């Protein structure tokens, strides 16, 4: 809202209990910077968090916020935004939260295209329950509960989003601070559901999908002659079994948010002192 808002205004006075070196620090910083940079302030921002390490984010940020139940942050965010389209709504979750228990809501949130951003901290492991396979864990990723690996292919969140009709699909890396912030900013600015899968390494339990791994392997689409408005190109990239990409993979320029489609343009919190004017007409309908 005001130009004097700094990203630190979005910081709460609680010290994160994430492990030292956790990717979530970088992910959160980028989110706060993106919010400040897009002209928001804590009083017009609503952050919805899921469960798990990622879900703690609401506590470490300063804004209107709710820490939901496991996997259901997206419908909460949609409800917040529909009831007050003037708010900037950002939903944060993890790969377990969003692609396992919340997979159904993910598909429908994508279809619904509410104008909010969804940042998933993907570390390809369950961290807070101390190292079990997550839906994005590799097929041969050995954990206490999957000693020989999950033996099933990981969920491909980007492809799932594209197949579900997403209007904005992006991927970023928490340690690449500038690119991450820039990508989240684009998600915020998108008129519709801005989905960002963020590689946010777990330094304690995942020794495969590490900072080094992502740093060496991620291909930044900014370095290519890539048109994010080309759905066919996006299809090729999200289904590419050889490489993983960073940047905006797909954006529908014609995206119209749910609220615009349904004419939701003002906050619903103001109501009359008594029954609304014309309510007696409702009774007359039953003559």
């Amino acid at each position, binding site marked *: 809202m005001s130009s004097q808002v700094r990203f630190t205004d979005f910081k709460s006075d609680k010290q994160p209990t994430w492990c030292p070196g956790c990717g979530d620090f970088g992910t959160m910083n980028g989110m706060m910077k993106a919010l400040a940079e897009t002209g928001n302030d804590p009083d*017009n921002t609503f952050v919805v968090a899921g469960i798990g390490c990622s879900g703690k984010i609401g506590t470490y940020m300063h804004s*209107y916020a*709710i820490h*939901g139940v496991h996997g*259901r942050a997206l419908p909460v965010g949609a*409800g917040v935004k529909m*009831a007050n389209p003037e708010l900037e709504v950002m939903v944060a979750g993890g790969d377990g939260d969003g692609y396992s228990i919340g997979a159904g809501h993910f598909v429908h949130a994508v279809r619904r295209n509410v104008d909010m951003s969804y940042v998933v901290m993907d570390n390809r492991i369950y961290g807070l329950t101390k190292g079990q396979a997550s839906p994005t864990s590799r097929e041969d990723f050995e954990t206490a509960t999957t000693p020989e690996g999950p033996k099933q292919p990981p969920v491909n969140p980007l492809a799932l989003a594209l197949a579900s009709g997403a209007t904005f699909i992006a991927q970023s890396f928490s340690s690449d601070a500038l690119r991450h912030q820039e990508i989240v900013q684009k998600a915020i600015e998108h008129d519709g559901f801005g989905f960002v899968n963020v590689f946010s390494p777990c330094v304690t339990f995942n020794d495969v999908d590490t900072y080094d791994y992502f740093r060496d392997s991620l291909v930044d689409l900014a370095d290519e002659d890539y048109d994010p408005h080309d759905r066919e190109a996006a299809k090729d990239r999200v289904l590419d079994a050889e490489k993983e990409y960073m940047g905006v993979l797909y954006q529908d320029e014609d995206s119209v948010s749910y609220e615009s489609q349904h004419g939701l343009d003002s*906050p619903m919190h103001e109501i009359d002192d008594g029954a609304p004017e014309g309510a007696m007409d409702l009774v007359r309908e039953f003559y």
Partner: protein
Amino acid sequence: MPADFNWAIGGEAGDGIDSTGKIFAQALSRAGRHVFTSKDFASRIRGGYTAYKVRTSVEDIQSVVDRLDVLIALTPRTIEENLDELHEGSVIIYDGERTTMQDVEIPEGMVGLNVPLKGLAEEAGGAIMRNVVALGAACAVTNFPIENLDSSLKKRFGDKGQAIVDNNKKAARKGLEYVEEEYDEEDLDYDLDTTDNDYVLLNGDEAIGMGAIAAGCKFYAGYPITPATDVMTYLTGRIERFGGHVVQAEDELAAINLALGAARSGARSMTATSGPGIDLMTETFGLVATSETPLVICDVMRSGPSTGMPTKQEQGDLNTLLHGGHGEVPRFILAPTTVAECFWKTVEAFNLAEQYQTPVYLTSDLALAVTEQTFEPDAFDMDAVEIERGNVVDEESIGDHQTEQEQFKPHELTDDGVSPRAFPGTAGGAHMSTGLEHDELGRRTEDTEMRVKQVDKRDRKVETAREREDWSPREFGNSDAENLVVSWGSNEGALVEALAFLEEDGVDVRVLSVPYIFPRPDLSEEFEAAEEVVVVECNATGQFADVLEHDTLTRVKRINKYNGVRFKADELATDIKETLSA
């Protein structure tokens, strides 16, 4: 000539039973007669027996009885299904030319009116209108002026054009004329008087939807489920006129979370479902209560457990509503007792939710949901609707509820347990809410003292409400009677009418109908004053009887019905008499 008249149309689902029944019910209502409808239906779209029953009287009626005077039978099974309720002189209208009805035998003592429904409908413009021909025939039987049907036909078919409306009017008159020409009037001795009264006719689900709009509900999210869907159907297309919005969610989990989100934005929000959906919503219910979010969750009960009998009546969810969810959280549970009370209890539910920042279960049931009943329009007097929003702070008053560091305290420890509430967007109000135990700022805590303080604070809201609000039961019958009959929910109507039957038999009772399940009235004094206490409810174990025994330390007698059918007034009178003398 009976004071009240009972009429039904029955056939297979897909035969247009519902709309035909509704057309007649509306016509009766518009002719100034009281109407009370009930439905027999199965959980399938086509085929299977289904019936729409209409009881009507110039007197007020509030229940169904075991009696049928005129039956339009579109299938032989319709007659079989209703044999118990048919009596000597009952009239059965049927189409003997219909293949399945050719060999039908009209039971002895009853009057069979063989009317070529399909043939006459075709003469009027199409076979599809055969049910309307039957309605015309029913008008002949009852001397009910056929002009009364016209406005209901217009209401039902108006969207399809004047020609369709005119054809239907013609079809009705064909039925009337056929009966008048072919049958002797003395066989048909029903006479339906009309009056000048203007009634409205609606069911419990519609009344809940209307109550929600009246109460300023702006956001509804739900997932289709029998018998709660009509709440969503009612709101869709109407709530928008008042600045609201309806979302059909992907499941009940999403529905309650969408509603929770909207409620956190400050909108009056609601979801409605039935038992299986309540199970799913229970996960989020705890978060709603702990985060102190005002939310109305409507449970239109049906037979359980599991998928149970989706189209049958039961009041079996009480224990779930009282105890559902892990841990301990305060809640309010309101149980409307009549269709009109569905409206008022919905308004009250929104007020309680916001005043005490607590989820409110509004528990209705299938009997209320599908029953259409006539009321004076004043029963829904919008001028009497009052809105209580509770402790909402704005940018000026927020300073009184901040720490020295200007941090807002959404879970401030207060004497009445109610904390200040800041709608998002309010400057200085930014705060965190969570399902984790938290301090006054909403921040996670495992501090033993704060844990106890926050639990006590949340519980204090219920205690405060107990003192401040009126939780009285509704009373009927003789307040000095020695025998006390207690019920909750939709049983009230049958119970009130049962009083007349009991009076005839010299049985004097006092009736308390309890619309508040939690908190609920303290009935200790009433129980002590009574010789016998009987608790009436539609479940097998007597869930409400259990809590009343617990409250009053008094053993009660129980009348439980759980075959899927609501109580009927005459039947209930017999049950009460037998239970009292047992």
